[in-house]
């Protein structure tokens, strides 16, 4: 297993390098000018100066190597510096700087990650926690009213886009009923029961919208996987041994059914970081998804490049994790 993991990690390096280069090429081809959003009164020479200062228009290979160096060497070293482990001279190492804020891109990311993890991550967890029991019961009681109802709800949850459910919830619960705020306040500091309650209130709507969407998908998966397994011969064996229905379903069948579902869940984790771009926009959660949109609108190439590449890393990483987890859950799979 360790061998396999190491081999996969080694293979991931060239893959990721190619991906990063492709992202770079595409962004280079993209029209757009980071000075485009500056006031029109700024004369052309000044714009040119600004561009030069930002490093726009450098030959692509130089820009790419600089970015690579920044991402793989300088940023990790900077991180070590901050942990108190200074190696070499920190001031000689330029960090990856955002065109828009002129600040380091990584610091921007760090500011945004907590919101995204809280809102999108929590909704993923909540989604899974609802989806699994629903999938199990729907399959066990196939075609019962519970199953029919669950099928209907998950069809709706799956086919109605989150921007619609999101807006609907805002209209009902913020505008009409006034229960929850429609704008997520990132500056809110949780330090008392009152502020905690406020935090919960502002999270409820975005988390619900996303959780329903996730649950719709995962519960379908869970149901299908359970149905596949419920008709297997080993289930009959378990019953013939005199095991209770609870053991038959929750030990024998569930354990087998979870194998593909866990894989799907693991593969879906990178999308948490990718943020629910649309949901973050609707509820004004300033998370990573929103940051990406702003970066694209402002032609902030270093930001977009770094963020996109991070997603690529996460996707490759969670693919590997999914495979490893699969191997751990299914004894028939042996890597090496």
């Amino acid at each position, binding site marked *: 297993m360790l061998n396999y993991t190491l081999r996969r990690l080694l293979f991931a390096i060239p893959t990721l390098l190619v991906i990063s280069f492709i992202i770079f090429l595409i962004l280079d081809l993209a029209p757009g000018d980071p000075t485009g959003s500056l006031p029109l009164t700024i004369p052309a020479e000044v714009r040119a100066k600004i561009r030069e200062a930002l490093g726009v228009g450098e030959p692509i290979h130089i820009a790419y190597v600089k970015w690579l160096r920044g991402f793989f060497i300088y940023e990790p070293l900077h991180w070590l510096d901050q942990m108190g482990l200074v190696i070499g001279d920190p001031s000689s190492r330029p960090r990856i700087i955002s065109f828009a804020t002129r600040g380091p891109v990584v610091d921007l990311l760090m500011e945004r990650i907590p919101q995204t993890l809280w809102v999108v991550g929590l909704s993923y967890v909540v989604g899974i926690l609802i989806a699994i029991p629903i999938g199990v019961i729907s399959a066990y009681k196939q075609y019962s009213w519970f199953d029919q109802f669950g099928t209907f709800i998950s069809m709706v949850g799956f086919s109605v886009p989150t921007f619609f459910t999101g807006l609907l919830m805002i209209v009902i619960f913020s505008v009409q009923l006034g229960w929850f705020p429609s704008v997520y306040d990132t500056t809110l500091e949780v330090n008392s029961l009152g502020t905690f309650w406020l935090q919960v209130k502002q999270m409820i709507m975005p988390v619900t919208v996303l959780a329903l969407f996730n649950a719709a998908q995962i519960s379908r998966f869970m149901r299908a996987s359970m149905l596949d397994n419920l008709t*297997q011969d080993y289930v009959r*064996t378990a019953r*013939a041994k*005199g095991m209770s229905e609870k053991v038959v379903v929750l030990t024998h069948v569930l354990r087998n059914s979870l194998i593909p579902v866990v894989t799907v869940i693991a593969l879906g984790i990178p999308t948490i970081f990718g943020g629910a771009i649309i949901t973050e926009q609707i509820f004004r959660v300033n998370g990573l998804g929103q940051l990406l949109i702003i970066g694209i609108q402002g032609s902030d190439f270093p930001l977009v490049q770094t963020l996109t590449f991070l997603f690529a890393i996460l996707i490759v990483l969670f693919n590997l994790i999914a495979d490893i987890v699969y191997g751990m859950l299914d004894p028939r799979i042996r890597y090496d």
Partner: protein
Amino acid sequence: MDVTDLKTVFHTQDGVVHAVNGISFHLEEGELLSVVGESGSGKSVTMMSLLKLLPIPPAEIASGKVMFDGKDLLQMDLEELRKIRGGQIGFIFQDPMTSLNPVFNVGFQIMEPLIEHMGLDKKQARARAVELLELVGIPGASDRLNDFPHQFSGGMRQRVMIAIALACDPKILIADEPTTALDVTIQAQIIELIKELRKKLGMAIVWITHDLGVAAGISDRLLVMYGGFVVEHAKVGDLYKRPLHPYTRALLNTLPAEGSGETRLRSIKGSPPNIGAEPKSCPFAPRCDYAFERCHKENPLLERIEGVHDVACWWDVEKEAPRHDG
């Protein structure tokens, strides 16, 4: 165990399938009863109905009584029935490749019923599991408990299944074609093993098979099934010496005669009956050489001919005349 008038139907999209049509038989302590009949004759459905192991719905046990230890298994609630399943009656299935749970090691799967029915703790159950694996002839038993089913060959898996079925010292073992999925040499080993275990443990066995040859070698009594009916029932010797039902005769004919050097397998002409409707006539009549008018109008009931020998047929093959006038 006494089974009376067991009827099982399946409600499917294409209508009702009458898989078992009023079957009665009994099983004495320690005896070996073979059930033979071609594919689809309802052997498995009958046996699984006894313990309600069929998926209900689509299956429905329409009528019948299964008396065991003075109680009707079909009237029991699930909790009571569970104690019988695995505890008093063990089951072995046709396909050992799929009958074990792939994600649990065999130790866990053998220990489960021990903990459930015999109230053993983990350690005792483990010790007993080792004993059982040794009993069914798996070498290196204590190490193999931690292996998963895919690490065993087909024959070994069937041995594990047998160990599970025998775990709680059942009074009855129902073996549903335990050797059909295995190759010939392994088949012979499994049959030997069952014989041996029967001698050692003395449980009653219901042995389901296609193979009259095998049945002859091991059983005390035989049930011949056709289209969801028992068509003949006799002691082994009587059945082979004096088969009374045309279907039994046809089955015996399909066995290659000893020393005949015959290599072509003979088959029974025609195809198994359509069981989509409740049978009104003898289900075998369309394929039967002896069929006459009455066979197409009325379904013969099982009737006693002598001692322990029953047959359901209007024609007396020995006298070459209808069994009853009228």
